[in-house]
């Protein structure tokens, strides 16, 4: 589908390409002509033109400190050993790579494999990142953690990591998401986290990020903000990608063992984009592997009906970094919609923008109704209830698999389990829960 011109202004100034280029003073590269590499970001946090740091001066020192400490931790064998041990014994990694034979046969195309992040402790990939950042919190001698959450998976994973390490935790969550993801709110509170519903704006993930940032502005000297996706100012997009890359690294090894070679195609859903970034990154330089990110297509391509910035948006600044975003002609962030709270976000991680413009990853979008169809399909044919976010990847992946041959292999990142969505699904269908 061609890039929509929905957001293009009619009055005032036409948006120009020059304005985009002049935005990137620290980068002279033109990512659209580049070949994607794993050697990103640069020292200023740029993935090609994307990324950087667009935050108030108040946060600079904490971001510098975090960059330094993360760099030290990365090179520290003790840190790596502690994190790996936790991932193994507390999270249950490695997560299996499961051959969905029945589903594959029914589709009559490629062999479909599921990377089972839903089997992790807390039921999603989010825990990979929160344990890493909680360890960093302790290393930086910070005594309090804040987090934002959409679907509640990152909130639960943050509450879990904080309970494990004995850190106080405050989770900001849009009031609309508190309503539609109740089981996760309850879990967070059970583990001692304070959930603060956010009533401003659209009452969803974007507003939760705003409130968490505001908290951090005042508490930055003793508090660490565990951002849950590959968004935000440098070093967050890089660091969260690194912590989530355990998904892709394991998957790569498992494919070599189980299939005897790399997969032909990998599909993952993209909201902020952390499960997709963790899955894709280790394969970026494996040119034979086709990668597809699936955004939330909502009710359709009209403005405000979806949450697909890579498909329909334009480059802009939101929440501390430069990336594709849904915005109006004045640069105001547009309202977005998705049936899944975790994908209901107007921005996306800057590395995804880089992968889009370098054509390394293809991005498409999947409507609410298609995602709901995939939920039922996977439940009835494979016995797996998967998260509504993940359903977007499943729906597009089975379509793609149909066009492939049975000797080809397609991997879906099954990023989370669907228990949290049961009540909302029942409500949408007018059924009793």
């Amino acid at each position, binding site marked *: 589908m061609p890039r929509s011109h929905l957001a293009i202004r009619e*009055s*005032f*100034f036409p*948006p*120009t390409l*020059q*304005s*985009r280029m*002049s*935005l990137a*003073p*620290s980068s002279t590269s033109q990512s659209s002509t580049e070949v994607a590499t794993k050697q990103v970001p640069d020292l*200023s946090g740029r993935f090609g033109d994307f990324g*950087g*740091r*667009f*935050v*108030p*001066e*108040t*946060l*600079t*020192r*904490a971001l510098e400190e975090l960059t330094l400490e993360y760099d030290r931790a990365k090179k520290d064998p003790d840190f790596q050993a502690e994190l790996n041990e936790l991932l193994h014994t507390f999270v249950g990694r490695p997560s299996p790579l499961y051959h969905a034979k029945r589903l594959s046969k029914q589709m009559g195309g490629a062999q479909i494999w599921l990377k089972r992040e839903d089997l992790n402790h807390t039921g999603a990939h989010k825990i990979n990142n929160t344990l890493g950042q909680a360890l960093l919190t302790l290393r930086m001698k910070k005594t309090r953690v804040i987090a934002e959450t959409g679907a509640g998976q990152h909130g639960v994973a943050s509450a879990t990591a904080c309970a494990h390490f004995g850190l106080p935790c405050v989770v900001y969550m849009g009031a609309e998401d508190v309503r539609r993801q109740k089981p996760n709110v309850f879990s967070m509170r059970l583990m001692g986290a304070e959930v603060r519903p956010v009533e*401003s*704006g659209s009452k969803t993930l*974007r507003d939760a990020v*705003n409130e968490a*940032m*505001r908290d951090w*502005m*005042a508490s*930055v*000297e003793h508090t660490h903000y565990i951002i849950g996706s590959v968004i935000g100012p440098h070093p967050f997009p890089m660091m969260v990608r690194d912590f989530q890359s355990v998904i892709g690294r394991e998957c790569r090894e498992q494919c070599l063992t189980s299939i005897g070679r790399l997969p032909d195609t990998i599909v993952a859903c993209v909201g902020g984009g952390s499960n997709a970034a963790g899955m894709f990154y280790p394969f970026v330089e494996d040119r034979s592997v086709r990668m597809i990110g699936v955004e939330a297509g909502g009710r359709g391509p009209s403005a405000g009906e979806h949450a697909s910035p890579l498909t329909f948006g334009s480059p*802009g*600044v*939101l*929440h*501390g970094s*430069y990336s594709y975003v849904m*915005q109006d*002609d*004045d*640069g*105001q*962030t547009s309202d977005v919609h998705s049936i899944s709270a975790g994908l209901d976000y107007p921005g996306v991680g800057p590395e995804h923008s880089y992968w889009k413009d370098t054509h390394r990853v293809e991005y498409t979008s999947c409507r609410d109704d298609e995602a709901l169809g995939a939920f039922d399909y996977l439940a009835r044919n494979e016995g797996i209830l998967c998260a509504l976010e993940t359903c977007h990847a499943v729906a597009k992946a089975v379509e793609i698999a149909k066009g492939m041959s049975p000797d080809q292999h397609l991997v879906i990142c099954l990023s989370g389990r669907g228990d949290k969505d049961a009540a909302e699904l029942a409500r949408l269908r007018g059924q009793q829960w």
Partner: protein
Amino acid sequence: MTAIDDLFAKLRGEGRKAFMPFITAGDPDMAFTCQVIELLHRLGCSMAEVGIPYSDPIADGPVIQASYTRALGKKLKLQQIFDGISGVAPKVSMPLVSMVSYAIIHRIGPEKYIDAAKGAGFAGAIVPDLLVEESDALSRICRQKDFNLIQLVTPTTPRERALKIAEQSTGFLYFVSVTGITGERTELPTDLVDRVAWLRERTTLPICIGFGISKPEHVKLLAPVSDGVIVGSAIVRMMENAATDQAGALAKIESLVKSLMAAL
């Protein structure tokens, strides 16, 4: 030389300090914003800072956020702001500065934003989410066009970095008094006066202090060590009911500004 440079040269020559109120553009509409600007000028304010409403202002507290939300809720567009300002700017001799997110400047295009802002009558811009590292391109354009790019120093800024920011800033340096978001505070940090004084000895650039200032005592404490004080949320709060009672809002602003200016 911009109008801001002229202002501080004059104030310093007379041994006076700047009083700089912040108001939101378009809350509840530009006609009211222009009335407030004329009022502030009549009351003898040195300069006015005009906030361009933004959908996701992470440096702003509840009062300014709510004000931005009200303005954007009425579909306020940037063009309307510039149209309104260009009507009122010739009527007031005090400089006007826009407080604007980089998200907006980027979308319009830095050069075009500055041309339009300057054309409307703004003398400079404060871009609270543009760090000194990211500001080179915009800074260059501003210098070419004789438009001030006012940068910010905060309590978490290390001293060396503060000096670097002071070098890059033009017009004046915005010294953020507290670690946190905008909004009235009962008390200001105890070491604030010392930190401003330290920096003031090392730069010739005027230094104005903002964030959290809401009481005459604050003004009395900070005016001697700085070149001016900025008051935002306390004034914007007076505009909360302007949609239904403009005269009442104007009267409240007048009485607050008078009490704060008396402490200068």
